[in-house]
């Protein structure tokens, strides 16, 4: 296994999920801490569909559509609940999702997860190996980035910013705020679904721990480090955050310390950026 390529691929997958989170947290101002759960649903949906014999493009489409719908449903409370209250709701959704992944054993395989998820093949070319898969993930990130860029520079993107900045003024201008929020939630969900499906393909094994609350927090940390609302920020963040565990392995620490130290490092990074560099490396303040 090529470690460097794996790192690139995972960072690219998480960049797609970071873009998904950016749409919600950065652009429209819905502070969601459950994007890993949506990503998880994408991963499970893809895995289950593919293992049931559904061809790759259809399984991918299914995962994306399901996540888009689910994200719209889970964002609905934010239309009534502001800021902190929605964080609590979203936290609850994350816990529920993890519980479902763990306990709906007949479908999700419970705590042992789903193994042996087949990689797609195109005319003899298999995406089993990182050397091939990297093209797929780079292509997907390219598409996702283009979508983000187009959306942000459109009239729709400007209106989304306006809603975040002053919802009441946007209403006074006659904008259909509800419809616009649901639209961006759907796009955000689709991105998380794409990220989840790619994750399932690449790892070929998924279990509930891959989509727990700490992964949601990790994704938010990526966004804070990279910087909210910019394309560069969402791509930079995952590449930096995923490099941290690799860096720690260079320190020749006893293996039992690596886990706790990694969590500590993420925590310190998150707090430091919030305090001293709230705009992140290439973005704006959340």
């Amino acid at each position: 296994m090529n470690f460097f390529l794996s790192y690139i691929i995972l960072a690219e997958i998480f960049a797609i999920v970071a873009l998904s989170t950016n749409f919600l947290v950065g652009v429209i101002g819905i502070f969601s801490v459950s994007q890993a759960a949506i990503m998880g649903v994408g991963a499970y949906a893809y895995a289950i569909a593919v293992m049931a014999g559904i061809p790759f493009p259809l399984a991918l489409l299914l995962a994306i559509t399901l996540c888009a719908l689910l994200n719209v449903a889970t964002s609905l409370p934010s239309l009534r609940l502001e800021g902190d209250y929605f964080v609590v709701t979203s936290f609850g959704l994350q816990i529920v999702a993890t519980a479902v992944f763990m306990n709906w054993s007949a479908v999700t395989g419970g705590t042992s997860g789903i193994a042996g998820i087949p990689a797609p093949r195109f005319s003899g070319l298999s995406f089993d190996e990182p050397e091939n898969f990297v093209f797929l993930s780079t292509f997907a990130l390219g598409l996702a980035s283009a979508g983000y860029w187009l959306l942000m520079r459109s009239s729709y993107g400007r209106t989304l910013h306006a809603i975040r900045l002053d919802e009441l003024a946007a209403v006074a201008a006659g904008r259909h705020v509800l419809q616009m929020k649901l639209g961006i939630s759907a796009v955000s969900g689709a991105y998380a679904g794409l990220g989840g499906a790619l994750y399932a393909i690449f790892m070929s094994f998924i279990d509930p721990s891959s989509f727990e609350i700490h992964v949601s927090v990790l994704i938010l940390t990526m966004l804070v480090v990279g910087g909210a609302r910019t394309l560069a920020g969402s791509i930079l963040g995952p590449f930096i955050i995923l490099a941290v565990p690799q860096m720690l392995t260079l320190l020749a620490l006893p293996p039992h310390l690596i886990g706790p130290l990694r969590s500590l490092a993420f925590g310190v990074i998150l707090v430091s950026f919030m305090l001293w560099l709230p705009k992140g490396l290439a973005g704006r303040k959340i």
Partner: protein
Amino acid sequence: MVHMLQVENVTKNFLGLRALDACSFSLDQGEVTCLVGPNGAGKTTVFDCITGFLNPDAGTIMLNGETITGMNRRKIVQKGIGRSFQNLRLFEELSVIDNVIVCLADDSGNDPITAILRPFHSQKILDRKRGEALKILERVGLEHKADHFVTQISFGQQKLLCIARVLATQAKVMLLDEPTSGLSATALKNMVDVIRQLSAAGMTLLVVEHNTKIVRDIADKIVFMHQGRVLASGVPGDVLERRDLADIYFGGGN
């Protein structure tokens, strides 16, 4: 005769406090009506009731003969009533022209499908909207600041931008909440000119204004409010000469 906007016996209570008490007045097309009265008279509540931000407890509001009481805020904007806010509420991280683009009545291109899957069409819509927004900025004299950020323009220009935003909604009736407060002498003259031009172009305006000199300058009609009631309405000469109203306004007595 059908008035452009007619407010009839509108009453609004807030937990036992009667903010509006059977308010009635009307606006006619092309006229500037100044809403005057001491703080707490209910001027902003009138704005909120007309624009659907609040639902009156009783009474009716009619636009061109059509009842709009209880209609949702967005619908009322689409019907042609636009408002500005006392505390501006501009989109501060957006450029001047984007503030206008976001408020345009034209809602096309405001969906993710067009934005992502039809990029060329989306760009065409944006270009068209930019052109439209520039024309609106010209009407208030801000076209040279189009690409500045809101925080980079003067307070007077920010207040003009508020008017441009309301114009963008294609309002036929404009409710302006204290458009001249806090302005320098030059900015004030500028604002008065803009209000006059709008009125000359057929716009119906309801303006909350405290400065009696400006009221004399711009008003075709005055509606004087106190403690939620309309105490007087009529041409400026008549209303402003009334001793009892002046006493209320300047705190001389009751």
